[in-house]
């Protein structure tokens, strides 16, 4: 049995790693996040929620003016 020289094996490993552009679980996480973000952006808000959004902004503005 011949022992592999780690020095010689390194370039091959490095090349292999360089070729792996994406980690699958990470890619899936990104896709899931993108889906969530886009559905979040397209989510339809009820008037009550819209009022809350604006009320909190208007309160912040009123506070900043003081």
């Amino acid at each position, binding site marked *: 049995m011949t022992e592999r020289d780690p020095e010689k094996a390194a370039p091959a490993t490095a090349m292999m790693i360089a070729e792996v552009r994406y980690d699958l679980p990470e890619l899936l996480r990104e896709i899931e996040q993108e889906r969530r973000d886009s559905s979040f*952006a397209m*989510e339809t*808000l009820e*008037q009550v929620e819209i009022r809350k959004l604006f009320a909190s*902004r208007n309160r912040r503005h009123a506070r900043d*003016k003081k």
Partner: protein
Amino acid sequence: MPFTGKILLIDDEAHVRKFLGLVVRGLGSPVTLEATNGEEALRMYAAESPDLVLLDVNMPMMNGLQILAAILQQDPKAQVVMLTSLANRQTIEDCLKIGAVGYIRKDTPKEAILAELTAYISDEPKPADPPAS
């Protein structure tokens, strides 16, 4: 006290402007101004300095967000309420970021629209209010 200020209604659809005209009459006796597009709206805003603007989002040429930004550039204290059938978070947050004071869905019942508008009008600083320290 009935509201007697000026309200500028900006919508490309005549029936919507007519409906809004009827709604705002519930505030008192406002002077109602109407514009059908961005260019007209900006000209009218500069000439009349309305107390409140009701602005649609979906319009030809300049859309509501562009008009909102242009009005606020003219007058950073402008009170602009978006009144639109679009109710997605992205559009709402964009309007919020640009500086709209409110956002009302067009499918909101007339009485509720009136209640919202009443709140915007009563939130306006009155000339007699003491200056903030």
